[in-house]
């Protein structure tokens, strides 16, 4: 069922709130990753406020869908989305990367209820998600497993072991989402280590592959719905995103992969997000 315009707007509003929180937490943390989290804010809003069957007041609920974040370094977007979804107070986001915080620089399952896995080292999330999907299938459980990955981490050999495994065992309860933002630490992915034709590669490993605009709520959610109808294969959704999305001055700039905004930059970025680049009035504008 297609989303109404009103539903789309509501999700976009959540995504903007998540972006604001990301900027605030990174400024406060003085370290961390900016581009990836901003680029994935729409997709995280779609997951936590539309797609996932989950309970923020009972994170360990057995019947929940499982959202695995493989590229753990974009965790600020997950923390922000979880906070806005009611897992913990939004103010706690400001403890990111600080001593004693539940919000570690890379996510740790044992520290924060609601995280499914511990992640950060690249290329391992798809294996873990496949293991979860395999185990759920063994027990005839109906919930779905989602794995969010970066494009850069496709360079890890471990990913292709997992791609083979999920294809072999026809893990149709598994949907992977690749954040295709084309950047990684050392530059553009196609310069560092070309991935294309990445869709064909997954197809060759017996995956169903869809490509969407990762900032288009309707397209993304429709792709997730289509994946549920594919019962012979796991599905990969290649989500084309803009790294740094929402802050035009850093969009597509790979140098923003791994650094936080300064307080001055933070103020400027927040204003850009809140006014949609001057298009709308805002009390802080």
């Amino acid at each position: 069922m297609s989303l109404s315009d009103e539903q789309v707007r509501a999700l976009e509003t959540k995504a903007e709130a998540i972006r604001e929180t990301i900027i605030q937490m990174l400024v406060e943390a003085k370290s961390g990753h900016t581009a990836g989290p901003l680029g994935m804010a729409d997709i995280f809003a779609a997951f936590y406020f539309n797609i996932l069957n989950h309970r923020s007041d009972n994170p360990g609920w057995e019947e929940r869908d499982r959202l695995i974040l493989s590229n753990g370094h974009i965790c600020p977007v997950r923390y922000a989305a979880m906070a806005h979804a009611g897992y913990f107070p939004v103010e706690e986001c400001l403890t990111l990367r600080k001593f004693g915080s539940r919000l570690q620089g890379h996510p740790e399952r044992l520290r924060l209820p609601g995280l499914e896995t511990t992640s950060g080292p690249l290329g391992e999330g798809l294996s873990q998600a496949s293991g979860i999907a395999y185990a759920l299938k063994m027990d005839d459980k109906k919930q779905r497993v989602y794995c969010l990955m970066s494009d850069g981490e496709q360079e890890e050999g471990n990913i292709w072991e997992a791609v083979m495994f999920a294809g072999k065992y026809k893990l149709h309860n598994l949907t992977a989402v690749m954040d295709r933002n084309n950047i990684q630490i050392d530059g553009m992915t196609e310069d560092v280590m070309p991935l294309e034709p990445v869709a064909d590669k997954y197809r060759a490993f017996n995956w169903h592959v869809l490509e969407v605009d990762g900032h288009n709520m309707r397209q993304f959610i429709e792709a997730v719905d289509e994946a549920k109808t594919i019962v012979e294969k796991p599905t990969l959704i290649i989500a084309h995103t803009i790294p740094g999305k929402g802050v035009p001055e850093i969009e597509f700039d790979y140098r923003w992969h791994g650094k936080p905004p300064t307080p001055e930059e933070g103020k400027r970025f927040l204003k850009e997000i809140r006014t949609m680049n001057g298009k709308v009035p805002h009390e802080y504008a």
Partner: protein
Amino acid sequence: MLNSDLKLSASIFADDIEKASTRDGFGKGTIEAGKNDPRIVVLCADLAESTRAEWFQKEFPDRFVEMGVAEQNMAAVAAGMANAGKIPFMASYAAFNPGRNYEQIRTTIALNHVSVKICGMHAGVSVGPDGATHQMLEDIGLMRMLPGMTVIVPGDAEEARKAVVAAATTDGPVYIRFGRTATPVFTTSETPFQIGKAITLWESNAPKVAILSTGSLSYSALIAARALSESGIESIVLHVPTVKPLDEKAILDAVQSAGCVVTVEEHQAAGGFGSVIAEFLSQHHPVPMRLLGVMDTFGQSGEPDQLLKHYGLDAIHIEEAARALVSIKV
């Protein structure tokens, strides 16, 4: 003298003592654990026959997962299955598991603290003809460093079976090390085994030296103790199958009465069992020590007995090391 309380093999010093590999114990133990608990699953990376994972596969085909030659994926898939409530035993050669997949074990199993049982097969030089690439000598060191990891090196096939069954009901990650070669089965089904407990195979009221050993070389330590006794040197042989957590009390008891220690392991002397004992004793009861292990070198092709002799790990070398240490002890 031999500790009669342990109900060790009746033919322990006979030439025809039963021999079996500790990997056989893995095969038997997983079937037993699988019968006890439907959550037990076995994952294997294209080595079902030689790891004995196929014994479980035949009994529980729906609970066996063929991973192909992909040990990194195996570790993280096992972590995911444990996250979803299963108790996976994952098996491959120790050179690849935990050799190849160490970082996956560190992050997705140890830091994630999930109940995956990592089974490293064909460890040590006694793999024999396959040579250095397959003779893993660094796995105890790698695994004992990981916080929350239990590390077990069974002494024979029977103890290996018990270790697998015990690991299945132990919370969190466990590493168990197995060997390829058939070695003397010196324990029996009645010999006690408990994770975290050492057993005194050979005892004495007035020992001159304590031999602390892990894995199947504990049998060689026993042969050495008997020879030492025949020449008037009394000793204690403490078999320490659980390298982590350490049975500190048993070790202190043995060392306080003997006053010096020889450690024995089929592993690099650096970073392995001997190092564990040295770290502990240096802080709690420093005594003269000799560490028998592989000395900063790789293995090579050969027959198991030939190789153990070459690397100084047979009964004769253990006896000589003990004798030398006793002679210089103040």
